[in-house]
Each structure stands twice: as structure tokens, then as C-alpha cells.
């Protein structure tokens, strides 16, 4: 019943949105959708499986998505966009389709269904990115669409190979695949294809090239949703396949690949955080770095899964908040190259302090859950004896934190007498997210 | 208690011997031995002139320095080997009291804002940087060879047992080191010529250039007292245990005469050569300590 509601309402909302005149009503519709979304999520969390049929992993991602979506809905109310009502209407419609597609991906259990929904998210978000049809955002959208659809096509090839790998009654529902009779070779090949397919969607190292362009060109709420929720949604199929690989005894193959891609992503992120001049690209690279850390966590075997989930939770909240704050900064400065910015602390004290706190939390200083997850990753790394990897990782993270804080401080400090006032909503959404992340960081909820 | 009397009267008296010896060496008659005491009494009654830059420090520094040196000398065995104050490890307090006196004088010197005093203080302090560790090493050697205790016990009660050659070797070397320290501390010839008039070459004298009257008297008395302390330490080190006071006085005068002869025979060292020589007591002490440890280890 819940899923029908979840799909029904957006369709109705889209129809209304098409006719509604003012921008406020669009926001209202989006807000209603977000509240419904999170309401259902909480109810599903309270009585497991009653409202929405999804397993724990799906519910976990669903809850993150609903929190982010409501934050973004509030943020949009505060935003003053100088674009025509027609574009704004299209933008809201596609936003709702985008969220609906992501809900579908969390609910689907059959790999084929997940594939379709992830493909749907790519298409709907491509249009959202090219929203301010500047030259660069159009190009970013095209690259995003093209590379992701190539990746998704490879993923589909992987799913087909999965079917081939099962001699008897082949089924795509991970739960009821019989592990004994599956042929290891085909399973390995299909896993590689699926990992690469959804890896491009998730922005892991060698396949990440679209991510900095897409996230830095997209408007603030969209890039927050992209990096906060979409990257996790792309992780769902990989985790489902990972469970399959564990049971069929090929876990070590998957873990080696995860570790390789994880370390490569953290390395690439370090290279480009030091180089980039644009603070939104810096945020995109730090998403790549955190996705790399998550993959390292999953690559270290079952003991580090808790760290992986905690890292996903922490990263999506803090990163989404950071993107919204970057949006505020962009609306103040209208220029992304951080070298000729400065003295945000004087211009707008609120967003400056939000910026500094968010950058402190993103590099994993105590209030944020990333600290505990980094500690656990380090613990498992050392317990497995990879001392070299541990020291390498710590060095890379230190360099990244230098880069992030260097940019943050260059933007925030300095003297200027320009004063800019921003709408209250613009602070509420990121501050709320950071608060949730802080609470999670201190009280560390029990993760299954 | 006799020590106290000894401290108050004798330092200025013995200081008079040195110019007398220098004069005789050259064939002159020299000023009378009691002249320094007369100067001291004359200065006590004179008024003082203070520079307009001077602060409260130049008022209190000379008296504080004198008092510190006086109290430090209470630890040292002079005529009688029982000192007024004394506890195990009191030589640490002794050294630090002397460095307090020197420190306060260094500050007071810089107080009148002329460049001479700065030059003098910098040289004086660079000496102390090497004398303090030297003194601690000397004490370590003595404690190692003789056993720990208060300064009185170490220098007076134990002294050198002439029958054991190792004690003689250690004792004599330490005596030489102490003698060099005496020369440096009281600004005698090889390091600093008290009789020179060229401020650029002075070390101790130029620090006190700006003091006059009562303070100058105190300063002269302090430097005389310091020299007296060191010479008494040397005497007690050389004299075997339990020798009579007469021997002690003769040895004391002998040391002063030696200093006087040294002043007339040896020329001053160049300024940076000076600093290299200040390292000599440190190296002697280190050498003897190493030899004693090696002996203990049964190397020989």
C-alpha cells in the first residue's frame, strides 16, 4: 500500500505542477512530497516491512534519501532563482521523478528492476544538471548522461551474464539464487561488469571523471541530492551482488577489487583536491574520496561493514549540508574560483561558520561520525596487518584535510565591509543536517 | 662561627696582596695591603650618582648580589670545617646562588643604557655558560671519588688521602680546574685585566662602570669574597684531612701570591681565545670523571 502511495502522489503532483502558476506552489508540492516520503520512511522504520516492502539495506538508503529530500525541499523555499516559471516547473517535475526513481531503486529486489530504476535516475538527473543551461552545465550534463549510460549498459551486460551463470531456473532476485550450482567463472565476469557499471554511477576512481563536472555545475540542492543520495543508491546493487559473492565463496575477489578501487579513489581525490581552484569541484573530489573510503571499508571484510554503513550515513549528511552551504557561498560571490574570494566571515558570518564546521566534519574531526568510522577502518586495516596501507591512507587523508581547510580558510578569512543577508531557510537546512550528523557522531546508533 | 668573622674581614685584606706581589715582581713598592679596605670604607660614605635611564634594579642589585654571595659562602668551609649552614647536596644551592648574584649584576649592568655594559655582560655571561656545568662536573667527580655529602664534608672532612695515588691524581686535577675557575670568576689576568683602562678590553670592570659610592663598595667586596671562596675551596681540597689552621692560612696566601705572579708574568689572551680556554675546567673535570669511572670499572 505504501509503495502505491509513494508512486501515486508524485504523479498527481507532477500533473498539478504542470498547471500551477507561482513558484511557491511548486515548492509546496515538492515539500509535501518530501514530508510524505519521510513520514512513510519513519513508519516503515517503526514497524519493519509493514508499509514498504524493502529489506534493511533498502530502508537504510530510503531513510537517508528522505532526510536529504526534506532538507532540500526546505532549502528550495529560501532560494531566489532568477529563472522563468516554466523552467522552474520543469525543474520541480524532474526533481520529483528523480526522487521517485531513487525510491524505486531502494525498493526493488530484482537486479533487473534496480537496473531500470538506476537508469531512470540517470536520465532524470541529467536534465536537472543542465538546468541553468550555461555552456559548462550543458556540457557537464552531456558528459554525465553519456558516461553513465555507457556504464549502465555495461551493468546490464553484467546482469545478463548473471543469468547465464545460473544453469537451472535463472532468477534475478538475489535472495533466492541457489548458490551451489552457480558457475564461478561466469559469476566473476558478471560481477566485474556490474561493479564497473554501477561503479561509474558511484564515481569510483578510474570511472569518476563525470562526477567533478556534474556536481560542480549542478545547482546546490541538486548536487547535494546527487552526492548525498544518488551515490548511495548506486551502491545498493553492488552491495547485493557482494552478498551473493560472499555466499558463493568468491568474497576475496570482490574485496580485492573494492580495496583497489577504494585506494585509487582516495589517491585521485588527493591529486585533484590539491590542484582544483573551484570550491564546488573540491567538494565533488571529497565525495570521490569518501566513496573510496566506503569501498575500503567494504573491502576489509564483514567486520568493517558497520564502519562502511556509518561512513555512508555520515558522509551523505555532511556532504549534502556542505553542498548547500557552497550554494549559499556561490549565491554571495557568483564566482567559483576560491582564490579571488575572501572574508566570507565578514560578509555573512552564518554561512562562514557553517562552512568551517562542515569542513571540520568532512575531514573526520570528532563531532562527525566520519571520525569513528575512520577509526574503525584503521582498526580493521591494522588488525589485518596492512600497516603500509594504513600509513599511506593516513598520509593521504592528512593531505586532503590540508587541501580542504586551505580552501575553507582562504574563503572565510579576510577583511571586507560588504554585508549580505540570506534567507533564513538557507541556513536552516544545512545546519539541521550538520546537527543530525553531529548527533549521530556522538551517540553512534546501533547499525545492523 | 669563626668562618663568619673570617668572611667579613679577610677577603678585602687578601685582595690587597695581589697588587703588592705585582709591584714587588716589577721592583716597585706597590700600594699598601690594607689599601683595599680603606677604599672600601671610603666608598661606603660617598654619595651615589645614578644614570637617568636606571630603574629600581640598579638600586637593589649590588646589595642583593652581595647578600647572595655572602649566604653562599656560609656553605663553604673556611677556617673551621663546620659551616654554619649545610645539607646534603647544598653545592647545587651554592652554584645557583652565585649565578643569581651574577644574573642580577648582569641586569643591573644593562640598566644604564650604554653600549659598554652590554658588551661586558655578554662576555661575562658567555663565561658562566661554561663554568656552571664545569662546577657541577667537578662536584660529580669529587662525590664519585669521595662520597656524597654537604660541601663541608666533601671538601673539608674527606680531602685527599695522600697514600692512594688515584685520590692524589683526582684531587690535584680538580684543584687546577678550580684554580682556572677562580681566575675567570674574579676576572684575573689571563681572562680579564682588572688594571686596564681601555673599556673595550674589560669584562668584569666594564659591567660595573656606572656604579659609584656605596654600590661600588658592595661590588668590590662581592668580587673579593668570591675569589676568597674559590681559594678556600682549593686549599681545603689540597690540604690533607685534619691539618691545622696555620697550614690553611699559609696555603691561602700562597694562592694569592700565585695569582699575583701569574698576573705579572702572563699576558692577556685574545678575546675569542679566552672563550676557548674557559672550556678547560670543563674538560679537566670530564677527563678525571671518566678516568675514575674507568678505574671503578676495573679497567686498570
Amino acid at each position, binding site marked *: 500500500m505504501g509503495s502505491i502511495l509513494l508512486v501515486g502522489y508524485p504523479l498527481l503532483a507532477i500533473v498539478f505542477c504542470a498547471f500551477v502558476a507561482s513558484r511557491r506552489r511548486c515548492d509546496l508540492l515538492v515539500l509535501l512530497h518530501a514530508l510524505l516520503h519521510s513520514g512513510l520512511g519513519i513508519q516503515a522504520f517503526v514497524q519493519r516491512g509493514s508499509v514498504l516492502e524493502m529489506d534493511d539495506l533498502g530502508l537504510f538508503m530510503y531513510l537517508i534519501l528522505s532526510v536529504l529530500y526534506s532538507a532540500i525541499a526546505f532549502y528550495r523555499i529560501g532560494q531566489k532563482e532568477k529563472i522563468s516559471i516554466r523552467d522552474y516547473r520543469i525543474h520541480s517535475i524532474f526533481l520529483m521523478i528523480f526522487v521517485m526513481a531513487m525510491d524505486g531503486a531502494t525498493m526493488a529486489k530484482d537486479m*533487473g528492476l534496480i*537496473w*531500470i530504476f538506476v*537508469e531512470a535516475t*540517470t*536520465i532524470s538527473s*541529467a*536534465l536537472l544538471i*543542465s538546468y541553468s*543551461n550555461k*555552456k*559548462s552545465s*550543458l*556540457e*557537464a*550534463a*552531456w*558528459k554525465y*548522461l*553519456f558516461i553513465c*549510460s*555507457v556504464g*549502465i*549498459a*555495461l551493468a*546490464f*551486460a553484467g*546482469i*545478463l*551474464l548473471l*543469468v*547465464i551463470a545460473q*544453469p537451472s*531456473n*535463472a532468477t*534475478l532476485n538475489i535472495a533466492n539464487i541457489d548458490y551451489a550450482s552457480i*558457475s564461478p*567463472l*561466469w559469476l566473476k*565476469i558478471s560481477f566485474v561488469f556490474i561493479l564497473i557499471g554501477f561503479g561509474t554511477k558511484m564515481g569510483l576512481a578510474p570511472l569518476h571523471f563525470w562526477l567533478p*563536472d556534474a556536481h560542480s*555545475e549542478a545547482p546546490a540542492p541538486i548536487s547535494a541530492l546527487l552526492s548525498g543520495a544518488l551515490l548511495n543508491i548506486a551502491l545498493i546493487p553492488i552491495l547485493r551482488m557482494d552478498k551473493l559473492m560472499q555466499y558463493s565463496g568468491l568474497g576475496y575477489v570482490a574485496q580485492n577489487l573494492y580495496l583497489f578501487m577504494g585506494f585509487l579513489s582516495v589517491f585521485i581525490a588527493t591529486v*585533484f583536491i590539491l*590542484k*582544483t*581552484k573551484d570550491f564546488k569541484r573540491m567538494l565533488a573530489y571529497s565525495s570521490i574520496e569518501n566513496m573510496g573510503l566506503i569501498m575500503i571499508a567494504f573491502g576489509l571484510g564483514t567486520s568493517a561493514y558497520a564502519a562502511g554503513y556509518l561512513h555512508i550515513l555520515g558522509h551523505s549528511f555532511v556532504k549534502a549540508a556542505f553542498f548547500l552551504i557552497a550554494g549559499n557561498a556561490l549565491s554571495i560571490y557568483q564566482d567559483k574560483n576560491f582564490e579571488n574570494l575572501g572574508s566570507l566571515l565578514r560578509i555573512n558570518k552564518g554561512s562562514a561558520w557553517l562552512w568551517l564546521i562542515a569542513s571540520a566534519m568532512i575531514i573526520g574531526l570528532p563531532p562527525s561520525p566520519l571520525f569513528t568510522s575512520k577509526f574503525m577502518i584503521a582498526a580493521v586495516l591494522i588488525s589485518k596487518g596492512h600497516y603500509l596501507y594504513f600509513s599511506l591512507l593516513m598520509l593521504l587523508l592528512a593531505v586532503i584535510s590540508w587541501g580542504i581547510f586551505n580552501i575553507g580558510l582562504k574563503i572565510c578569512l579576510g577583511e571586507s565591509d560588504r554585508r549580505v543577508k540570506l534567507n533564513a531557510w538557507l541556513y536552516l537546512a544545512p545546519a539541521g543536517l550538520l546537527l543530525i550528523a553531529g548527533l549521530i557522531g556522538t551517540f553512534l546508533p546501533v547499525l545492523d | 662561627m669563626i668562618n663568619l668573622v673570617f668572611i667579613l674581614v679577610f677577603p678585602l685584606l687578601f685582595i690587597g696582596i695581589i697588587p703588592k706581589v705585582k709591584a714587588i715582581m716589577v721592583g716597585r713598592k706597590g700600594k699598601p695591603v690594607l689599601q683595599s679596605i680603606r677604599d672600601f670604607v671610603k666608598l661606603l660614605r660617598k654619595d651615589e650618582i645614578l644614570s637617568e635611564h636606571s630603574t629600581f634594579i640598579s638600586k637593589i642589585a649590588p646589595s642583593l648580589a652581595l647578600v647572595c654571595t655572602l649566604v653562599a659562602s656560609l656553605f663553604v668551609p673556611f677556617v673551621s670545617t663546620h659551616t654554619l649552614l649545610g645539607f646534603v647536596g647544598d653545592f647545587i644551592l651554592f652554584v645557583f646562588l652565585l649565578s643569581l648574584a651574577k644574573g642580577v649584576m648582569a641586569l643591573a649592568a644593562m640598566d644604564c643604557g650604554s653600549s659598554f655594559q652590554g658588551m661586558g655582560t655578554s662576555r661575562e655571561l658567555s663565561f658562566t655558560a661554561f663554568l656552571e656545568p664545569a662546577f657541577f662536573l667537578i662536584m660529580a667527580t669529587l662525590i664519585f671519588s669521595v662520597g656524597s655529602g654537604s660541601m663541608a664534608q666533601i671538601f673539608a672532612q674527606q680531602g685527599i688521602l695522600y697514600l692512594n695515588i688515584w685520590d692524589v691524581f683526582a684531587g690535584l686535577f680538580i684543584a687546577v680546574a678550580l684554580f682556572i675557575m677562580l681566575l675567570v670568576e674574579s676576572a684575573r689576568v689571563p681572562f680579564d685585566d682588572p688594571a686596564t683602562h681601555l673599556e673595550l678590553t674589560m669584562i668584569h670592570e666594564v659591567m660595573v662602570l656606572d656604579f659609584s659610592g656605596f654600590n661600588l663598595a658592595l661590588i668590590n667586596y662581592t668580587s673579593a669574597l668570591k675569589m676568597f671562596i674559590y681559594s678556600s675551596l682549593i686549599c681545603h681540597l689540597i690540604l690533607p684531612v685534619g691539618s691545622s689552621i696555620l697550614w690553611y692560612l699559609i696555603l691561602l696566601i700562597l694562592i694569592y701570591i700565585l695569582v699575583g705572579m701569574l698576573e705579572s708574568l702572563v699576558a692577556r689572551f685574545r678575546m675569542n681565545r679566552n672563550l676557548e680556554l674557559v672550556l678547560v675546567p670543563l674538560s679537566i673535570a670530564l677527563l678525571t670523571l671518566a678516568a675514575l669511572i674507568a678505574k671503578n670499572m676495573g679497567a686498570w
Partner: protein
Amino acid sequence: MLEILIVIFGFSLLWASVTNMLGTVIKILVIQGVILFCITLLKTTQLNWLSFSLIALETLIFKAILIPWFIDDTIKHNQIRREVEASVSNFFSLALMSLIYVFSFVLAASAPVWSLKVFPLEFGIAFATILKGIFIIIANKKLITHLMGYLIMENGIFLLSLSAGTHLPYIVSLGVSLDIMLSVLIAVLFIKRIRSTFNDADSPQTLREE
């Protein structure tokens, strides 16, 4: 009959790696669409004739007719120069094509027990098409050739799903074709907008780490 069709499909790939005219590439796409239509027809059995006939019809319409017409129309409209400026010479792409064939057939043959439904030939050709599609994208700078490489890859995947998919629930293959069509439509829309903002045919390269 099935094998002959697949071999022709293989030849069309070889032909694609040799041509340097955009027009011929479109012709190849049409031929591949027709072959796929015939394969789906051949594979329909009584059990699932309804779903497969629907898919066959749909492949015919989209793959053989609609998309090539669309691309042809965009080429005419935006005066893109006719040739395929491949960054590598034809000989090299042909050599690479044969290498891809070798690689895919080794992979197909290396599967230990062949009790599965997939014939090595079908899997080999499908896998080669996928790699060939990606290679075409890499080799060329022009936007249109990127799209065509993508379509060839889609055909390869569709062939793979056909060969594996006899038991596949038809919903997925339907979904496949639908998705492909949708993405191509969006891509073509994009090309129109990109054409209007960027005036040259090459894919834009402004976003880079200077």
C-alpha cells in the same frame, strides 16, 4: 539459419571498423536492426510468442527505422562534415577488431561446462560488439560518432540478452529496449541543444582541470 544471421552481424561490425563515411555507419545500424529483428523472430516459440513478437516489432521500428532516420536528420540539419574522423587509421581499427574477436571467443570458449543455454558463437559476437561499440566512442572526437558507438554497443547487449534471455522474464528485455530508446531520444535532444550552443561538431572540452 540463426548462426548465419549472427555471422552477418559479425561482418557488419568489420565493415563498421573500415568505413570512414557517416552515411555507411547509419546503413550498418539499419542492417544490424534488421538482423536483430530476424533473430528475435527466429527465437519466438509458442511459450512466449506474444512478448517476443512485441519486442521484435519494437526493435524493427526503433532500431531499424526511427533512430537511423533521426541521426540522418540531425546530420543534414547541422551540416556536420560527412566523414568519420577516426583518430586511428582504418588498418589499426581493423587489427583491433580482430583482436577483440580473439579475446571474446577465448572468453566464450573458456567457460568450462557448456551445459548452459548460451552458444559460444552468439556470446562471442555479442561481447565483441560491446567492445567494438566502446572502441568507436574512444576513437572518434565527434559527437555523432559517440552516439553511434553507443548504439552499436546497445545492439551488442541486445544480442546478448536475446542469446541468454530465452528464459528471461520478458519484462526485463522490454525494459531494456525501452530504456535504450529513451536514452537515445534524450541524447538526440541534447545534441540539438549542444549544437545550438557549441558551434563545432566535436564534443565540448571546456571542463578540464587547467
